[in-house]
């Protein structure tokens, strides 16, 4: 089982804030408490977690932490690949993107351009596979997500 550990420092500050609120609640009067209005919203009470003293956290997967140098290096290659695709050189573009993925496998643009290169080469299966990966890695970027969706439409149009 994974133990709770994420946002630990955040929770400490929340505890203080919650404590403050609780004191205010007590001061505000028992009748209010009796109505049960002081129950905490489900799934967000750090105080109760603290109260139950969970074991030290250790195994919750962290969100990816971007190392700038990797991202920058990978994106530079992506730019080169994009230019190669624009000049109708999909094979050269794929060679460059493979290097870019090796440096930063979470750079979603690489998968987008891989899909583009494979579409150019006429392999819709590969294009679709990479489009799916682009979808995952670019979902939080609205502009890119839209491009990925449009690419998917182009891939699926017979």
């Amino acid at each position, binding site marked *: 089982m*994974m133990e709770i550990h994420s946002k630990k420092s955040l929770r400490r500050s929340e505890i203080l804030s919650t404590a403050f609120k609780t004191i205010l609640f007590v001061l505000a009067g028992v009748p209010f408490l009796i109505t049960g209005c002081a129950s905490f919203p489900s799934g967000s009470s750090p105080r109760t977690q603290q109260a139950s003293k969970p074991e030290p956290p250790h195994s919750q997967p962290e969100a990816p932490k971007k190392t700038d140098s990797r991202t920058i290096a990978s994106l530079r290659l992506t730019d080169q690949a994009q230019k190669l695709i624009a000049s109708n050189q999909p094979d050269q573009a794929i060679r460059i993107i493979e290097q870019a993925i090796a440096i930063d496998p979470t750079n979603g643009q690489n998968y987008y351009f891989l899909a583009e290169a494979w579409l150019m080469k006429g392999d819709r299966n590969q294009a679709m596979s990479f489009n799916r990966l682009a979808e995952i890695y670019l979902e939080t970027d609205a502009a890119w997500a839209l491009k990925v969706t449009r690419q998917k439409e182009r891939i699926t149009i017979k």
Partner: protein
Amino acid sequence: MLVVILLGTGVYGWHLSKEIENRFSTRRWKIPSKVYSDSVVLYPGQHMSRHALLARLGRLHYRLSDRLPNRKGEMRHIGETIELFLNDLNIPARKREGFPVKLVLKENEIVNITHLQSGEQIPLLDLEPEELMIFFDPDREERRLISINQVPQHVTNAFLAAEDADFYQHYGIDPWGVLRALYVNMRDREMSQGGSTITQQLAKNYFLTPEKTMTRKLKETVMALVMEIMYEKDEILEIYFNEIYLGQKGSVSVNGLGEASRFYFDKPVSELSLAEGAVIAGLVKAPNRYSPYVDKDLCLERRNAILKTMLRREWISQKDYDISRSSPVTPAGFHAYGKKAPYFMDYLSSQLQALYTRETLSSLGLSVFTTLDTQVQIAAEKALSDGLARIEKNDPTLMNTDPGKMLQGAIIVMQPKTGYILAMVGGRDYKTSQFNRATQAKRQPGSAFKPFVFLCGLDQYTPVSKLSNIPATYTVDGKSWQPQNYSFIEGESVSLRTAIARSVNLAAVDLALKIGIDEIIQNTRRFGFSTPLNPYPSLALGASEVIPIELARAYCPFAADGMLPFPLSLKDVEDEDGNIIEGRHMTVESVTSPAKAFMMSSLLRSVVTDGTAGSLKNWGITQPVAGKTGTTNDSRDAWFVGYTPNILALVWVGTDDGTPLHGTGASLALPIWADLVKQIPQFSSGEWFKMPPGIIEETICSESGHIAVRGQCPKPVHEIFLEGQAPANTCSIHQHDGNPFKKVIEEIRNFIDSL
């Protein structure tokens, strides 16, 4: 009579001209194909061991210098700074001219890369690939073709001085030259000139067999005359420069000025100095006698004699003569050809030979580019070698010199997303055993197979689902089978996460039988196993043999959003003119969903944080890793497969004859994995996988497996679920009785307790 002789010579000459024309119009020389590693990209901020980088530059033949590098191939190393004049890069992905750069490293990280002349920052730098292997024909000749235009005049003159000073004056034969040579040789041994002109030598080398008969001598003479009529002097000289035998590199003959220039001075012909040119020119007479690698004094004597002739002929000035004569002979040094990454090369060769004949590979001068990363390969070889020695030291009963019983191992390192095979070690010592355990061995994977069972279970079960930990007896083919846990596991049931983390056999079999063995086989087949998966419950415990490289590849989808990559070793093949005649790209196939792949990585990470691979941190691995140990019956095989988003490595330890090892995957294979990964910091980003759509997080009561009740459940834990599979109910064990007043009082009490 004279007319008849002349006519006969003419007819014979015409006949020979056809032979010469035919030979020259077809391929002139056999050029062996060469195999290269992958190129390497360097960038600021990259983790890189300085020691490893310097070693790589050494393998690329960069020559250490104590001055600022001003020629391609030179480098200077001062403290944390490496300055080098890059060689030209000529790979399918990129071509560029060499230029001087400065790399600054600090604490095993590249701080910056700048252009040495302009000071411009360089964001990305490609280092050229390393030469790994040469496909020789049975004659084992190495040759590097050059054009006459690349040869400096002083080098050409040195050859003429040594062999045929009147080359540009005569018509193929030089009767006066013969007499002069005799006179010179007798006079003062200044020059040991031979009587044959360069054209005659070429005719002899290129067309004729070496026996010494009058007929052959006559044929050589007529042929030289014919060649002089058919070709320009410079054409003849160019063929000569490419043809001439100039020494021996181990069992391989060094042919042609281009190769000799590399072999003796590790530089292109165009950069040879006068003194160096004279050394090579002096070799024609007796390459292995005058070689600077054989006898420096004799070599120096011969060189100076040639320089003297050049001075006498006024081809060089007195000053040039004095400088060159006083310069020492400093050959670059060489390594005899040895097969690097031999098991990988065998694996690659089998693919190449499906595309090209052996004759093609040894004669057409192809350039074969591969996925191999030499630093990873060296790290893998060292980790295996050190690891096996350590195991034997700890348990001397495993020491055995019999190759069939010797402790063996195999390592495969892949990039899980691209499918690149970065390194492959198929055994402990290629010289004693060429059997490639990475690609040819079929071994039981033991618990290293379990992830494929658990993956199948994810459709119906979650990480908090309970699986049976009660011993049971099964009847298989009429025989009873009673699986057991490797070590004691408490309780009648365990969660699915604990079952994989602690590799609980009883729970794995319980899960497999709940899913159905056929279903497991059907699903697992998609992961590219070519070996049969036998439909028995023991499949869940890894009883069906697999090939290590197929197991490594089958783990890749967990690290690659569910995409199974094609295992790539061969990338591109270029012909002599640089045209790509074969190109292979990464290709993938979806075998499971990104959400399930993420779930598997999360489960397999628990193996490292809370389970059988917990010792990984003791071996110095602190970055997040997912992995699985495997140990087969009687400890015949020990496995560890571990991965991060950037790299995946499989380690197998065992013996060919199945001798028990007295250890586990965790104790035998895992330390080797750790050693390997620590040596390649550039692959350690420290990042974990991005959570894909289709995964939700919940806080769960670790006792009931239901949604935790705040303040009630004593051990709430964070857990992830596939969408739609999270428990709907709150914890029934610690459910509150519903009185809001009591609940608030408890909240206050808990808060006070927590202060």
